[in-house]
């Protein structure tokens, strides 16, 4: 029997909230990601997009590929703009509408982090999605703090290799005590669907970190973009998990704090990081030592994750 994706068939065949004609490159993970995200969120969604590839993908005024309202906002303002839309909708009583900030890794890890931190600390009722293609792709592949060690970009070319590990955005966000944080990826459509459906019912700041392949930026064949993204999870470079802060206590009759990590996808097979890197043009300049270091870090982080996910109540600082 084949592993099939657990997404209701009606959803895949009904009228799309995203229409083709998009300006994304061939094999772009970002357009696929939006399509799948909207399967979970549904029509009652407002999308807030700062400067990033998605600004372009959606099309130029007066056209929009997205069939839900979308607001283009300045690069560093995704979260705060979403908070503003939220406030407006609340004032109109449209509580059921989800406001989704949809930003790139540059817009999230770097320039937008202060406004994101503010919104998260206030626990504004927004969904913040970082579709992470691991560099500033729209402006032609510059390094961001989400770019992995060793990846080629135009600002980390051969000879000045990136040595700094990718920023740990998950733990940063969890340090804001938000109610929900998850990682997901376009290679696992039903994982995405499940998480985007779930966040509709959680109040407060929800953060989803989504791995989104970029064929030109990753130096890969467009046809392989999903396959290689799947390898990221299989090689534990990008584990798929979710963290919830609250649990309903029957005894107390109210929510109680209970940090729960759940790993959603366990690798089916042993896949060395090396294989994942070998598959991509952007990692070709890495030395064997560097790859080994990455493997060690990946293993350590996976062990930590397993430990956190074993059911013990944890605080994010542990």
């Amino acid at each position, binding site marked *: *029997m*084949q592993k*099939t994706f657990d997404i209701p068939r009606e959803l895949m065949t009904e009228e799309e909230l995203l229409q083709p004609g998009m300006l994304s490159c061939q094999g772009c993970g970002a357009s696929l990601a939006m399509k799948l995200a909207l399967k979970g969120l549904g029509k009652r969604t407002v999308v807030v997009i700062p400067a990033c590839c998605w600004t372009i993908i*959606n099309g130029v005024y*007066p056209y*929009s590929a997205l069939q839900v309202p979308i607001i283009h906002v300045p690069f560093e303002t995704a979260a705060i703009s979403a908070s503003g839309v939220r406030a407006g909708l609340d004032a109109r009583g449209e509580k059921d509408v989800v406001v989704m900030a949809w930003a790139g890794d540059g817009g999230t890890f770097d320039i937008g982090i202060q406004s994101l931190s503010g919104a998260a600390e206030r626990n504004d009722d927004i969904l913040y999605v970082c579709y992470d293609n691991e560099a500033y792709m729209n402006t032609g592949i510059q390094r961001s703090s989400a770019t992995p060690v060793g990846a080629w970009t135009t600002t980390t070319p051969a000879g000045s290799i990136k040595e700094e590990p990718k920023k740990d955005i998950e733990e940063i966000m969890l340090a804001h005590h938000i109610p929900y944080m998850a990682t997901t990826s376009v290679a696992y459509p039903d994982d995405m669907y499940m998480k985007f459906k779930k966040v509709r019912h959680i109040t407060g700041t929800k953060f989803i970190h989504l791995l989104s392949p970029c*064929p030109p930026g990753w130096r890969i064949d467009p*046809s*392989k973009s*999903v396959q290689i993204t799947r390898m990221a999870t299989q090689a534990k470079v990008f584990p798929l998990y979710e963290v919830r802060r609250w649990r309903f206590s029957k005894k107390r009759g109210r929510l109680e704090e209970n940090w729960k990590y759940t790993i959603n996808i366990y690798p089916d097979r042993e896949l060395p990081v090396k294989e994942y890197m070998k598959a991509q043009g952007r990692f070709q300049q890495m030395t064997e030592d560097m790859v080994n270091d990455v493997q060690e870090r990946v293993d350590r982080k996976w062990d930590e994750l397993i430990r956190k996910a074993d059911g013990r109540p944890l605080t994010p600082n542990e």
Partner: protein
Amino acid sequence: MAMKKRSEMAKEYDFTSWRDFTPMNISLGTMLHNMTGSWRFIKPIYEDKVPACQNACPAGNDIEGWIKLVQKGEYDKAYWHLKQEQPFPAILGRICFKFCETSCNRAVLDDYVSINELERFVGDQVDLSTPHPDLPEYNGKNLAVVGSGPAGMSVAYYGRLLGFRVTMFEALPEMGGILRVGIPAYRLPREVVAAEFAGLKNMGIELLPKTGVGKDITLNELRNNYDYMFLATGVHASMKLNLEGEDQSHRIMSGLGMLKKVALGEEVDLGDRVAVIGGGNTAIDAARTAIRLGADATVVYRRSETEMPAHSEEIEKAREEGVRFRFLAAPEKIELNDDGTIRKLVCCEMELGPPDESGRKRPVKKDGVLFDIKTDSIVTAIGEIPLFDYLNKIIKTENRVIEVNECLEVDAKADGKAKIFAGGDIIDMPHTVVHAVASGKKAAIAMDCDRKGVEFAGVLKKIAIGDGPAISFSQYMGWSPINPVRQNNSMVVDSEKIVYDYFVKEPQVEKKIQDANSRKGSFEPYSDTFSEKDALQEASRCMHCGRCTECDNCLIFCPDISVLVKGKGHFGYAFDYDYCKGCGICFTECPRNAITMIDEETPIEIDN
């Protein structure tokens, strides 16, 4: 199927100044006017291909097709579908050497699918004597089949489906060739063979046992009375050891001769101990038969086990049943008692030298090291050869085979009426039942082409399956495949084209075989056909290589929303080439390679 094109809904706006802008700059329309299909230089098409198993089957059995029907519980349909390419599932489901299983792509993941057991299950679902439900009118030509083994059975079956009036001539009192008189009943029950013949008879095929050609009727008579002839007389004489005394004892016999006697209910006198000389299937069957007749059996083979031509599974079963093996030994001398019984068999120790033409290591005598084997009888099974006397030198033979051309037509002097074809063990081909069946199918099609005056070589190209020699009867007949999608019959889907990420490990269903002790006392079959539950479980392991299962992966993964579901009552999907950018994700993520990427310029008619 005509679908409303999305591009027809596209609207464009021609703004000439900022005054045309909407208040608050609200967008007005979709991006549908931007036909991104123009970016494409390669494009995906839906195209079913040839699974590795089907490619490996000499008969081109459409395994994936009938397994799909089994999964749906449509056993009747599965039976008739299977018979399109391989007419005798109940027989081959029991005794085939399973070329398919050896190339099953599933083996890379866990273990091959037990195709042969499933074939047997399907074969046992329908009364074998049921004639084909869709028999055509006779086409006015008659066909004489000489020999009732699997090659003859196959040509008769397909010949009748093509409208030939078929008569089958068999020298022996029983029909079935080796199936009836060679392969022992514990592997292939007599009733199964008999029921298949009942089926052939019910299709209007005339069966004439006890009618030896060259004995009861001459080849020339047949040549003058029939439009077509098919020779499939098999290899029924045994090679000699060429030792003194070989012909002077009733306790020395050929393996096939002994099996034949047992099969026809005649007495055989083996004594208590039997030495079987040889390493092929005949040797193993003879030894296992001897065990069932209460004797001790030792197989004496001049090479080692790895070189044995017998099927390894059969060797294993023989060993379990108590057959002993003496490898690297060759008979040197037979010493007889005065009453014709055997005093001893003197053998020579052998060792393996460099490989011979067959690629196996050549056995060479270890200088003068002799030893005795105490035995009461000797069964020789060192190879079977054909008896070509009945051909009366009308037909050319060379190196114990009849020479045939691409159509399996024999080069006969053109002084008779019939066109003569040959197949099975008497032509240069591996000696297996499925190869024999394949030759019968091919000859039937060749005869039909000849009847219609169509060039066979051209047809052959069109109906070839994958890269193997197998050809498709169903394609010759123009029958529709199970999936109503474009078919690519030359591209084979091997394991490299399978996306194993999408398959979960699932152990093979265990085959229930009686233990050696209970099976060695009986000629009854020692294994049962799969139960329905087992069959469904095993069938569910099929990965449907190369054939769309409507799993939705392409639909889910298309980043450009360019895969459309054809809708109720229609199979599969259609690409929206107005927008498909040709990224190829659908192609890479299709678990089973049912999508092909082709050059944008390739002229191909796609029925969307």
